[in-house]
């Protein structure tokens, strides 16, 4: 009887803990990140479309309806949701200009055990700025390999490469051809 009571307390605690566990969602307010990716942009569309993306405009489309876009920004987790690192997806916000060149990448969230020395230091994301969708994105060749965290580095690199190519194919018919 005592054992059954102890067991049910344990189960209840464990159940409550699981329910309380915070599910990780994409950063809902990446405005500061978007500014870094497109410093010249006057306005950004809300996150929309398929795949989900932000469109960056040089002048606010509310005042200039014919404003051409400067490029696109998107979460790797929206475009390639199945790409998992060591522990779940690594949330990277990527900017892509109309020529298919990356304007930057920002690692916003990850839960990688060795993330603190692999994908979190800004040095990692910084190396993607200026790469094009036609680059190889091979760790150890054109992406710096931080040895001993190859799963995290490899996953973030594939996520940035694949999501950029998918966005380019969809929205940049000229640059996306290959």
């Amino acid at each position: 009887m005592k054992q059954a009571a102890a067991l049910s307390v344990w189960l209840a605690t464990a159940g409550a803990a699981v329910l309380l566990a915070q599910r990780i969602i994409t950063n809902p307010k990446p405005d500061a990140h978007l500014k870094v990716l497109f410093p010249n942009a006057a306005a950004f569309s809300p996150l929309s479309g398929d795949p989900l993306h932000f469109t960056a405009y040089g002048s606010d489309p509310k005042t200039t309806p014919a404003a051409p876009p400067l490029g696109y920004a998107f979460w790797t987790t929206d475009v390639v949701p199945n790409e998992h690192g060591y522990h779940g997806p690594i949330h990277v916000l990527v900017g892509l200009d109309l020529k298919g060149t990356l304007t930057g990448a920002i690692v916003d969230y990850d839960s990688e055990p060795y993330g603190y020395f692999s994908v979190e230091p800004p040095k990692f994301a910084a190396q993607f700025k200026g790469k094009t969708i036609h680059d190889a994105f091979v760790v150890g060749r054109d992406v710096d390999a931080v040895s001993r965290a190859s799963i995290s580095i490899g996953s973030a690199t594939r996520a940035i490469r694949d999501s950029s190519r998918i966005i380019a194919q969809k929205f940049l018919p000229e640059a996306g051809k290959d």
Partner: protein
Amino acid sequence: MTTAAAETWRDILAPQALDLSLLAAFIVLAMTSFFLKSVRLKYFTLAAAVGYMGFVKSSLLSISDFFRLTDLSLPPFAYSLAWYLFTAFVVVSTVLWGRLYCGRICAYGALTQLMDAVLPAKLRINIPARIERRAAWIKYGLLAMLLVYYLVTHDLATPVQYAEPFWMFTLFGTKLMWIGLAVLLAATVFVRNLYCRFLCPVGAALGVISTLTVFKIKRWSECNSCKLCEKTCEWGAIRGPLIVKTECVRCDDCERLYLDQQKCPHWLIQIKRARPSAAPAASAGPSAAASSAPSSSS
């Protein structure tokens, strides 16, 4: 996938080939040392564990690997073949033989065992068995606490950085992490394998799995009264006639004694009985002796 240049299997496999073959070679070495009960090969394995599994690969089993199972978050298979081979080996070997991983695969355990072999024995403090038995439970408490912490916060990085020392092989740590490690290693000089025996949550989790062990260490009927192995065991895993599976790391020390016909009372008694007729068969291992079939410990 609709990428500009789809990857072929070759593109995926080629970068992993070296890592996979070295890992397979290391596993073969470790299992050879285990099956041959060779002391020299075991030390060779321990050195390889520190060098290759530790400083080169730094992909030791971590408590985060167990916690990730709660949300089924695993690395992609095709790109992480070595990780899957390693994980499958750890799980299968633990079910078959017990905490073999702790005894010769884990780079940190290998490091402290090598420290133990090199440091002068007089520095060592022998903890009374009574305290040792209680202290062995600390790691299970730690495992439970960390599990609750993970389920509530979903934070893997903090346990990896502060509850286990395996990050040390990456050489990436904050000042606080290095200080904690220094204290732990300093204490290990006096108490052998301190972390593995009393604190390691990974060892505790493997200890839970090891209760399933298929191939147990055999015990003779003479083991009921003999204390030779119990005194030799560096892991506090032998209590009278019993081998405590959750503490045993399959270091081979007691099994080597079983095989020693000059030391193990089982053989001494056999030899005494056999003396009038003929000399004992030198090659007879424990399994070949039919007169007193060894019983499995539990």
